[in-house]
């Protein structure tokens, strides 16, 4: 186990390094300058500015300098927001993104599980068909469509929740609900099919034969075993939520990281693009890692030693 962990962490660092390198060089291919009013800059001014920020150096030198600073934990300064460090820009925005993301994950997982379990238990009933249809809709309609509908009907027409802005807990609800739709649909579908599969397994028949009550069979054997594969879904779902926030944050004026990311690419704010890319990649890599570990604990068939051998 220990050896596996060390090896895994090694791979994680290498992956991150490759991502940093690839992003750095790809970013250089983007046209334009990170300076704020390219429409009006003359060639002479541009040269002065490039020299000031070291952008006149060969890309290789710029890269080495960036990696050197990165190793020391220095992500540099934003080009657009004069004087602000990339660290401060990221750290002040993680909170809102993480909050609506986690809340969406929790809402989605709970609602999805309930729907999925009931569907499976009432297989081929009207409820089952209804929830399958809902799940298909939830998977195929993008979350920003739900966001716009929720904002208009719940926010403007009914006036139950704030339309947008970031002013207290109630304003986190609509973005979280909009984001959770995909999660709900995915989890519901997955649990339903897993449960249907588990219900037919030998050990379930054995459990029934042992004389366990139906409730005991369902809770102890069916649901528990059906949940294991759901854990593997959490990784990809967390990723889809993070990308989902890019649009949701803009619609609900949430001061989050996703919104900042798209903006920094559009204005070519080099240091912010790099900083957020590194942050997102590290997070993804970490989530996948954690899911793998949890999976190992849940499923006795997985053997860490076997993989490292």
């Amino acid at each position: 186990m220990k050896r596996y962990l060390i090896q895994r962490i090694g791979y994680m660092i290498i992956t991150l390094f490759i991502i940093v390198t690839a992003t750095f060089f790809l970013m250089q291919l983007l046209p334009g300058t990170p300076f704020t009013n390219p429409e009006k800059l003359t060639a002479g001014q541009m040269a002065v500015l490039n020299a000031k920020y070291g952008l006149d150096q060969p890309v290789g030198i710029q890269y080495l300098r960036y990696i050197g600073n990165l190793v020391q934990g220095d992500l540099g300064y934003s080009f657009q927001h004069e004087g602000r460090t990339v660290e401060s820009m990221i750290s002040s925005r993680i909170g809102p993104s993480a909050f609506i993301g986690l809340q969406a994950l929790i809402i989605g997982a709970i609602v999805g599980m309930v729907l999925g379990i009931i569907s499976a238990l009432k297989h081929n009933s009207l409820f089952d068909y209804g929830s399958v249809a809902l799940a298909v809709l939830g998977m195929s309609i993008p979350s920003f469509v739900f966001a716009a509908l929720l904002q208009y009907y719940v926010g403007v027409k009914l006036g139950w929740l704030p339309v947008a802005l970031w002013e207290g807990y109630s304003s986190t609800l609509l973005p979280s609900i909009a984001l959770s739709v995909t999660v709900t649909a995915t989890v519901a579908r997955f649990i339903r099919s897993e449960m249907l599969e588990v219900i037919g397994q030998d050990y379930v028949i054995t459990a029934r034969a042992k004389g366990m009550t139906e409730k005991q069979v369902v809770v102890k054997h069916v649901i528990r075993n059906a949940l294991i594969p759901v854990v593997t879904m959490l990784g990809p779902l967390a990723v889809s939520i993070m990308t989902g926030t890019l649009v949701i944050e803009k619609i609900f004026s949430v001061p989050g990281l996703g919104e900042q990311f798209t903006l920094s690419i559009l204005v070519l704010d080099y240091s912010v693009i790099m900083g957020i890319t590194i942050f997102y990649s590290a997070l993804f890599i970490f989530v996948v890692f954690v899911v793998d570990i949890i999976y190992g604990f849940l499923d006795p068939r997985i053997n860490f030693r076997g993989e490292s051998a």
Partner: protein
Amino acid sequence: MGKKMKAQVLFVLMSFVLILSGCNFNSSESSSEGTGSEGGEETAGQVLNVSAVADIPTMDSTKAHDGVAFTVLNNVNEGLYRQDENHEPIEALVAEHTENEDQTVHTFTLRDSKWSNGEPVTAQDFEYAWKRVMKDASPYNFMFVTASIKNAEAIMNEEMDAEELGVKAIDEKTLEVTLESANPLLQSLLTFPTFLPQNQKFVEEQGDQYALEAENLLFNGPFKLVEWTHEQGWKYEKNADYWDAEAVKLDTINAYVVKDSTTGVNLYETNKVDRVDLSSESVEQFKDDANFNTILEPSLIFLRFNHNHPVLGNKKVRQAVNMAIDKKSLTDVILKDGSTPLNGVVPAGFFTNPDGTDFRELNGDFNTGTVEEAQKLFAEGLKEAGVEDVTASINISDSDDHKKVAEYLQAQLEENLPGFKLEIKAVPFAQRLEIEKAIEYDLSLSSWGPDYSDPMTYLDMWLKDGSANRMDYHNPELDALVSQARTETDAAKRYEMLLNIEKILLEEDAAIAPLYQDGSAILMRDKIKGLIVHPTGATFSYKWTSIEE
């Protein structure tokens, strides 16, 4: 097992609360939240709620470079001059202004006024801030060249030190500004936020924290910035120590960052904001609303021609392109966002001659005509160029608006000018600009916003080798007239020259094809009076705004 479960649940809850605490909810508003009333307490008193398209990139006046920052700076600070309700410069901190005979040395005497820390605003504050702009090669340092401040150009090209800039504090109350040559636009340019003063002692004390948060700033304008939550919004309060505080009626202004235009409309409908810009999709829905309005914007959307192109280099072909496009349908049917057709390079409604007549009215329309005339000119032009037909591509940004316009142009030109084939090449904005600067296009869909409130900002673009020319257009007559007009201090004579520059560009050369002038459609509650929208520099002035129930 049960205990372990509980511990896990507790852990998840705890971490949730921890994240929530790091969420920086907008504190000023969480107190009023939950009342659910139709903004009962917000309509009472002099409170204005507005939205902003982005966070303030920087509050350092020497580094500011966009409308959002310029607006905030304009309302919390005061420079030598300020734009009035008609966008004309009026004295702000200037009590008295004298100039020498050839109008190259200007002496400004300052009135008594205070920074928000109680220190007086002095002439040294101006000298310090201005030199700081030049020293740091700030984005708007070219404004000093435009204003003809002595040595600004040399400093910008790194041939001279920033200390040599032609500005000097004679004593606490007297500022001497030296120019390269007389400049009729000086006062108008000095309203620009880049020319605001800064308190040297305060700036240096704050070091790299200066202007990063509301508490790292000093104010001397009509309002104070009392709160600034990054990416969410900011709050102004009336500055009781402002020298002209009597004129200021609003007590509080709340600004919210709203980047999505539909969200803005929804916030307007729930009384959260008092004014909102509409996108063309929302115009349909609200055009009959009592609070709906369209306002003219000073930006110009036009076609650049590559003057080295074998066919487009021909004047008759360019004239034909100008005439073949039905600009009215473009603005009224395709765009529907308050834009208006433009047949000149200087937009209508913002610039008047000394007698108060609009520039557009004086110079009229250029290169208008029927489709038949266009076809005739096109045929002649093709003949002169020695070709039967022409295939050209148009360089555009990949925004929705640009695509709509380009598709319309394609349909119009191909239908009205037989033998003209137009290919659309959509690229990201930054690349469009690069292609333009390298003149690697046939036609380019461009826009231009003014730097200052004078027609010259649209006319000196076309100088040979000017950085905004970008099409290898050159007419020595135009170049000569521009440099004459730059130093002409007789307002009437100067205006005559400006009119003639446009005539050379469009009547003589048909160098570009102006398409339309931007407009915007807005919803604003009618209780709001005196909210001034400026064409250049700061977008809004709140100094004269009031709420009248």
